[in-house]
């Protein structure tokens, strides 16, 4: 099958590649660019493990062709920390609040939460839960993921994080 040339920006770097039209974005990122942070979980657009940021929107990269990302700006979990390796507030929050156990959903969770906090820097707990409704976690029960996102929102806002009373 003929390939199509695409150019896009991934984690700040320009990428030009020839892809088969049927190549899914998740496969392109993982197999061609070796960005294995975004995971393939359900492969049916339910679980959100493959979430990446595309032109300022959280998308499930298992349900998008790489050709559709032509001209786009893509951010994966690999592009969330500062270039010097300093963790993003969300990454720090997931560590501090034990927002992960097996870690499989974590790249998608953090990438999704990254966009959520851009759109709504001070989300309520209900807004956080609605905002991550497209990301499944089978370990944590979500409690600590919500706390991790609250931690990050507080840190970004420069206010002390206070855990809600149980």
């Amino acid at each position, binding site marked *: 099958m003929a390939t199509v040339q695409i150019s896009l920006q991934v984690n700040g770097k320009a990428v030009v590649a020839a892809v088969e039209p*049927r190549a899914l974005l998740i496969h392109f990122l993982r197999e061609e660019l070796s960005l294995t942070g975004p995971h393939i979980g359900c492969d049916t657009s339910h679980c959100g493990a493959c979430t990446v940021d595309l032109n300022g929107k*959280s998308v499930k990269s298992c349900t998008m062709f790489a*050709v*559709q990302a032509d001209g786009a700006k893509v951010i994966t979990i690999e592009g969330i920390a500062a270039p010097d390796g300093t963790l993003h507030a969300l990454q720090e929050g997931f560590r501090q609040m034990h927002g992960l156990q097996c870690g499989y959903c974590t790249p998608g969770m953090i990438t999704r939460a990254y966009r959520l906090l851009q759109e709504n820097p001070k989300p309520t707990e209900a807004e956080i839960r609605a905002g991550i409704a497209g990301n499944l976690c089978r370990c944590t029960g979500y409690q600590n993921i919500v706390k991790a996102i609250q931690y990050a929102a507080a840190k970004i806002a420069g206010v002390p994080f206070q855990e809600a009373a149980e």
Partner: protein
Amino acid sequence: MIPGPFAYHRPKSVKEAVAMLADLGEDARPLAGGHSLIPMMKLRLAAPSDLVDLAGITELKGIRAEGPDVVIGAMTTEHEVIASELLTGKVPLLREAALVIADPQVRYVGTLGGNAANGDPGNDMPAVMIALDATYHLVGKGGERRVAARDFYQGTYLTALKPGEVMTAIRIPVPAAGHGYAYEKLKRKVGDYATAAAAVVLTMKGGSVAICTIGLTNVAAKPLNAVEAAKIVTGSRLDAATVKRAVAAAEAITSPASDRRGTPQYRTKVAGVMVARALQRASARAA
């Protein structure tokens, strides 16, 4: 899962897109948000020879007021519907329904036109469009025609859309100021299609229902216009006996499939419950 091979096209205008679809033949498909089509292609339930991606066509985007109507470009995403102040002010039912479609990621990409044109009885917007008496703009090589949402659906994946045609816009007559509305959907979890759902639009006058329309989701091979149920409540004060009769009328027109969401009997009863709840909530919201 990897779809079968296909050729990819990205036209810049509707005219170019429909010319392409005509040239490429019946195995070519337009691609909107792709959140129904791509999963089907991954399962090899769909194997189009060509995808004509509508994403680069700016005339398919946007929400505008036009006289007594609002006109929404078919490639407007569910996220854009939710964020639209114009729609939230004039047709708030759309936002309410869009918020229970799939999840945030899917709503960023999934389109209103895709949801309406797809023809899957599980899609939420068709019943909403039936309740709102929307009209679809369909463009083919021969030009544009307009089809009422109430006439558009024929069966599972069967619609009035002809091969080579593209839905370009949805025209909705703005309901009267002070109207009540509700979309009640029972689903097992986020991202699931409805076990059953009901869309209600009504106006109240002196405590009685003046005008009412009811659409039903996922309880037949196509979305249903519950005309009889709406007729029963019109003129009433939504007393318990009238609502019970309307619920029975709505239940009588359903023929749901048996699937993991429940037996046909259960899903029919759920449809009735959704109608009662939607009537209740819509009337409470009406001025």
